[in-house]
């Protein structure tokens, strides 16, 4: 009996110690620490200047400008003309009859040219003004045809930064068209940032092709 009590006592102590030890060892508090570093605020690139249509013919210095991608103007749009030939483009007359259907309206917008931007800028360049004026004439001929202006960027920079920059490019193109007399209600803007590049090579030429505002029928 004494042996059994001793055995029971030792057993109980053993189990109690094992359980207590395990619990004490395994129940350490949770610690969570956080900190920040490298905080910075970078000012944005200059907001696209609102350019009056009257200024379109004036020469505008563009110190950081890269050469427009002449060989790829209208990239992905076989019907589009090269930027250098925009001035010669035969645009539909303002008095042309209105398209009979939405499909015809879309067709009328198929020839809208893209406009290109300098690196990290959303300013309408001189070469882009001619394209936008031609686009405005086509839109007026389209009798209220609706379009979407999509802003695109090259692959440099973060996704978020380029989404914002793409939107600013699209907005700059929209503002210019509105100044030329196009109704704001006709135009929607969107941004694809660097997500839908027209050219996928990693070169300056390719990056210039991707820094654009692209016009498409809604």
């Amino acid at each position, binding site marked *: 009996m004494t042996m059994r009590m001793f055995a029971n006592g030792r057993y109980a102590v053993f189990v109690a110690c094992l359980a207590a030890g395990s619990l004490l060892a395994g129940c350490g508090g949770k610690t*969570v620490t956080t*900190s920040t570093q490298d905080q910075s605020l970078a*000012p*944005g690139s200059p907001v696209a200047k609102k350019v009056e249509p009257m200024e379109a013919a004036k020469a505008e210095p563009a110190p950081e400008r890269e050469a427009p991608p002449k060989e790829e103007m209208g990239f992905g749009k076989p019907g589009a003309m090269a930027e250098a030939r925009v001035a010669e483009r035969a645009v539909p007359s303002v008095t042309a009859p209105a398209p009979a259907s939405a499909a015809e309206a879309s067709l009328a917008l198929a020839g809208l040219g893209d406009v290109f931007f300098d690196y990290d800028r959303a300013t309408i360049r001189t070469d882009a003004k001619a394209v936008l004026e031609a686009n405005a004439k086509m839109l007026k001929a389209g009798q209220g045809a609706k379009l979407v202006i999509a802003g695109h960027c090259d692959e440099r920079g973060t996704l978020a930064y380029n989404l914002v920059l793409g939107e600013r490019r699209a907005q700059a193109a929209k503002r210019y068209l509105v100044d030329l007399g196009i109704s704001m209600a006709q135009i929607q803007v969107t941004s694809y940032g660097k997500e839908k590049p027209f050219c996928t090579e990693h070169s300056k030429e390719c990056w210039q092709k991707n820094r654009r505002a692209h016009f498409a029928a809604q």
Partner: protein
Amino acid sequence: MTGFMGRWKQGLVLGVGLLMAGCAANGSVVNLDLQAVKVEKAGEGLSVAVAAFEDARGEKGRLGVRRHLWDGETTFNVPGGKAGDMVAKVAADYLKRKGWRTEGAPDVMLSGKVLDFSVNAQSKFGSTEITVKTKVAVEAVNKADGSVVRMTLNGGGSQKVFWFEPEDVQELASEVLSESFDKLVMNTKVENKLLRLK
């Protein structure tokens, strides 16, 4: 005496059971579905769109492992295997619960780069120690003026548990990420729909 031996056997079984608690599910993968936790709403925030976060870690295939008491390991990962997407999801979840709007036209575009995100656990006799480490570089671009707020968020957490459950890891990792994003909110302020550093 027979009873004494029988109880010793019971004790032995109990002890082995405690030890075996650190050995279950050897070789398996535990997917951690993380979410924002312990978030206190703080009024109306900005409208934000959270873009996918880039996973810039050296080892992208997993978050880490749990090393079992005797041998073997369990792998920790996130559903879908994309840690960047998971961190972005927690960020969006956190900001939404904090009072920021995630619908409509955004005032701020948030993106980031996951520089470090490791989750590990080491089982020992009677306990398992879980450790979580994060380092996320975030970038918030103000849509109105194009200005950019950048910040690197460091997070770390550890916890010892007696009986290991995958939920412990999930909870700790969620907490570390949530507190990291809390630092982002605490160190910034809103001025005329623009995010600025305090």
